[in-house]
């Protein structure tokens, strides 16, 4: 009998290792992203990390944090100051000023449809992987909120509301930076823009004018605008490829963009293609906000291209300055681009600090 004891012990451990832990764990309320029909029909599912599922409590916390200047060193600046809802979460200033009055050399990116950035490279130069990691940077950037995460954690921990909100969102009232960025990322993933006039046109709920339709054809015509290779189409409702290109802004590259991050000279001067949704609200344009109007942007591609070693091969007729659109085609292209603006998005109360 004694000989069998080791086997019983072994059996016991095998059984124990397979048993469920019957410890009650708090689970916040699941709140999956509402995927728009055109997205569902045409493109891949959004990216939501398994370790940060969307929850009602997490999204609400993320929203509160997004609008709260508590994240900045002197309590004067919130995310929303440079990513304003009425501007599709971008900044009307060419360069945003941080709490110390310093300016970066990039224009604040608009925020929407971020869960459909499949490669998960964020910022104009793609320097951060994943939305959660993105949110770490502005808080400590000396040109932005100029804070330390230790200080942020302490302030939130001492706050009368936040510990309880973190408890509800993540099951712990002990606040750390990774939970802060997780909550913000959850809120940002809910910023879905899919109700522009052009979306409704594709769904048979709106009718485009002849100018807007011609503008769409200019956009899709390889002999005219040829915009679709990088900026989406009726089959890709993101209106961006989320890739990095040198679109011929400068003959001499000073801001290396992606090249600064990868260290590959072949990437110098490459920046992320921004979505063409919501252009009505997101001026100025380009990574450095150099163009104040859509007309200036169109003129750039039509006549203003500058050759450089890394200019994208899709930038054609560079020697002539670009694709040489007629005045009518330019006007129509602009009319079409404006149909991609989503007024329901910027007026959505879920996205405002009410």
């Amino acid at each position, binding site marked *: 009998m004694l*000989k069998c004891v*080791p*086997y019983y012990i072994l059996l016991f451990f095998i059984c124990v290792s397979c048993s469920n832990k019957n410890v009650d764990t708090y689970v916040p309320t699941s709140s999956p992203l509402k995927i728009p029909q055109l997205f569902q*029909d*045409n*493109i*891949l599912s959004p990216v939501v990390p398994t370790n940060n599922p969307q929850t009602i409590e997490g999204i609400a916390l993320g929203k509160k944090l997004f609008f709260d200047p508590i994240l900045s060193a002197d309590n004067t600046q919130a995310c929303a100051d440079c990513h304003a809802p009425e501007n599709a979460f971008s900044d009307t200033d060419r360069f945003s000023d941080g709490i110390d009055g310093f300016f970066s050399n990039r224009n604040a990116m608009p925020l929407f449809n971020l869960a459909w950035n*499949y490669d998960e490279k964020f910022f104009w130069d793609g320097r951060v992987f994943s939305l959660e990691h993105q949110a770490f940077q502005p808080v400590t950037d000396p040109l932005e909120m100029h804070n330390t995460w230790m200080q942020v954690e302490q302030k939130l921990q001492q706050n009368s509301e936040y510990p309880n909100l973190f408890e509800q969102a993540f099951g712990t009232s002990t606040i750390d930076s990774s939970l802060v960025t997780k909550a913000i990322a959850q809120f940002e993933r809910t910023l879905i823009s899919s109700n522009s006039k052009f979306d409704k046109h594709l769904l048979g709920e709106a009718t485009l004018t002849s100018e807007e339709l011609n503008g769409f*054809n200019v956009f*899709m*015509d*390889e*002999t005219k605008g*040829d915009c*679709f*290779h*990088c900026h*989406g*189409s*009726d*089959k*890709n409702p993101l209106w961006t*490829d989320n890739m990095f290109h040198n679109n011929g802004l400068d003959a001499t590259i000073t801001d290396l963009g992606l090249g600064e991050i990868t260290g*590959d000279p*072949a990437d110098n001067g490459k920046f992320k293609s921004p979505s063409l949704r919501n252009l009505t609200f997101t001026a100025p344009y380009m990574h450095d906000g150099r163009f104040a109007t859509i007309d200036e942007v169109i003129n750039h591609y039509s006549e203003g291209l500058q*050759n450089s*070693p*890394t*200019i*994208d*091969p*899709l*930038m*054609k*007729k*560079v*020697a002539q300055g670009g694709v040489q659109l007629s005045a009518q085609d330019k006007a129509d292209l602009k009319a079409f681009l404006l149909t991609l603006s989503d007024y329901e998005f910027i007026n959505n109360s879920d996205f405002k600090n009410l």
Partner: protein
Amino acid sequence: MQRIVHILIFSLITLLSCTSDNDDTISQANATFNFSHNWDASAVTNTDFNTIQYTNANGEQLSITKLRYLISSITFQKSDGEIFILDGYNLVDVTNNTNLSFTPITTIPTGSYSKVSFTFGFNNDANYNGNYSDLNSTSWSVPAMLGGGYHFMQLEGKFIDNTTTETGYAYHTIRAVDNSGTTQEFEDTFFEVDLGAVTITNNAVFEIDMNIAEWFKNPNAWDLNVLNNTLMPNFNAQILMFENGQNVFSLNTINQ
């Protein structure tokens, strides 16, 4: 002592149960297709991109900055005419070093086949009767004004033009369409790549080579000074590409 023997036997059985079954004969086999690329026998990977270092048949020096292409309809045909078409398609993306290996989820019976082939691009049924979210997401679709469907290949880069200026080229292949008349006229440009006969005895790996230089060589010496951009709506250019594509692919070896 006896106890140690028991434990040893127990351990031995546990270990044996974890060995793989490679020695068994199988009746169904997986077919894997690996895609390698060269410029006239000189290997090309994405690490060779972005440098002007190749010379095409017409004498232009060029670089490659992007290469991706679609293959579909992998087909195994028996001598009695029975056909096995493997599900799925594959967008080979040399630029990002992804999808260079493709193993369809469907398997094939072991045995002798008189012909193995795949389609470069999509046949018309696949091209027009499917809406593929993965391909849409990577901006692979063709504008409706050119008939819709999908690109077959995007080969891009720079070349030194006849004014010694570094100039971009975008060698994009699609189904040829002529928009000059009142109605659109199409001509098929997908093509079958015949890999020959094979006897499948086990899971098989087909090593496929693409000689990129062939796209510029045979039978049409490609003049990039004339044909470098806006080739999608260029019916004649699409036919020339189709002709040059015929000898681009070759079977290197089959490992099984």
